[in-house]
């Protein structure tokens, strides 16, 4: 086994372990952290497969932003998992039964009939090959239509989130920087002419 293969299996093992812990661990904050670990290991796997752009973007977007917000919410909410797990054991046998049946059926069909065309291993590429450039080329040419629709989907998500949550509460104290800048002296200071104090008599 080469060193690279060893690293690959190591990260794969960490990934599977972390993914399992995400669903089994009791503390939701720990679950989120295990999810972060899972993302990180899969990024490492992609890196080993020479998909460096995807790997780094996974870390950047999911680990660096999405999971931070997740963690933020989970920490703030202080979720009580025990309540969420109520009835878990009651439904477990049925769920297990259905799950096993589906797995058995899938196994039967997929093993017997899902024949992959004989493919060859992807050719290793030279050091000058830029994964990022290739992806960009494809996204903006061949996949431009789905790419634009995906952009529209994200826009709808933003509009929906803001439309459903933004509230203008009356009476909140906030600054209006434009108004602050526009202030002139006469708005704030009034010079009043007053006589000097009366002379002592």
């Amino acid at each position: 086994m080469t060193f690279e293969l060893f690293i690959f299996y190591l990260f794969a093992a960490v990934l599977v372990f972390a993914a399992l812990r995400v669903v089994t661990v009791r503390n939701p904050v720990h679950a989120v952290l295990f999810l972060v670990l899972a993302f990180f290991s899969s990024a490492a796997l992609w890196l080993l497969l020479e998909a460096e752009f995807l790997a780094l973007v996974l870390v950047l977007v999911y680990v660096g932003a999405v999971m931070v917000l997740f963690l933020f919410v989970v920490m703030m909410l202080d979720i009580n998992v025990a309540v969420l797990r109520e009835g878990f054991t009651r439904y477990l046998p049925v769920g297990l039964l259905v799950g096993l049946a589906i797995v058995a059926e899938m196994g039967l069909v997929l093993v017997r009939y899902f024949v992959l065309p004989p493919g060859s291993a992807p050719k290793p590429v030279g050091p000058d090959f830029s994964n990022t450039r290739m992806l960009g080329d494809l996204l903006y040419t061949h996949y431009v239509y789905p790419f634009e629709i995906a952009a529209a989907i994200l826009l709808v998500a933003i509009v929906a989130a803001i439309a459903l949550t933004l509230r203008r509460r009356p009476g909140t104290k906030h600054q209006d920087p434009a108004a602050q800048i526009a202030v002139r002296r006469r708005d704030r200071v009034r010079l009043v002419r007053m006589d000097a104090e009366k002379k002592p008599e």
Partner: protein
Amino acid sequence: MTATLLEFWNGLPEDFRIPVLILLKIVAILVPLMLSVAYLTFAERKIIGYMQIRIGPQRVGPRGWLQPIADALKLLLKEIIVPANANRFLFLLAPVLSIGPALAAWSVMPFGHGMVLANVDAGLLFLLALTSMGVYGVIIAGWASNSKYAFLGAMRSAAQMVAYEIAMGFALVGALMAGGSLNLGKIVLAQQGGVLHWFWLPLLPLFFIYFISGVAETNRAPFDVAEGESEIVAGFHVEYSGMAFAVFFLAEYANMILISTLAAVLFLGGWLSPFEGTGWQAYVNWVPGTVWLLLKAAGFLFLFLWFRATFPRYRYDQIMRLGWKVFIPITIVWLFLEGFAILFHLQPWFA
């Protein structure tokens, strides 16, 4: 003597030599970095001292030069106290998570032509990904401490870092568009030709936004609400003591140096000489490129300290407003303009 040593070295197996060589390179980067961190703290106290018309540390060693060493020794010897009901594992993991990315990011930093530990193709992306990881140290520290102040600091920091990361990322996108590559070395080489060819000029707004976001990302004044010693004591690291605290400290300063160096690389021509293209270049040819890079970085570091001595702390909603409503729109507009400039080959930057 050297000949025999070299012969001995060459006789060693390749599988042994390469890792050792890499390790040596890492040490060659990290040791000066750690020393810079130590003396950056000293410089900070001295500079802010003079700005406030006082002298700063002067007792330990000649003119106080041994002060950082003494501080380090003191922190090393102090006890690490884990608060009651704190999550012990995460509590101790947090400082490590915070320093790890701060150090790992240096692996792609080019110190001169070809002088880089890992010349990866997507270096800029790698940097961005790693700096975005730094926030975990802060959040986990705040949560694992089981303390209200620490938690508040962590929450503030999480929201702030996510907000400024976007603006920072867009500013970096501007640099990569101008350089035509994600490789930091290639971005520097694209700036050849003198001060006016460096990217600070065509990317002026992005340059400012990058540096200000960098200040916010490192939680430095005036964006230091995560620590906010006058409101929430010391924010996320209020419960930390001894070496655990020192590691946070190291990470913060290492990140400052990283942001400064990166600003120099992306916008001020990295290791390129500022006299390029002028008659002066002949006199300074002997200066190695690394010196130029470090000088530029030092200039930015001075700005960090200057900001801290000058500006009052932003209020939290002001920070959010600046990040989301000012920086992000400006970066997007400038990226559009830059796209047009590249399309029409605006001279002399986009040949």
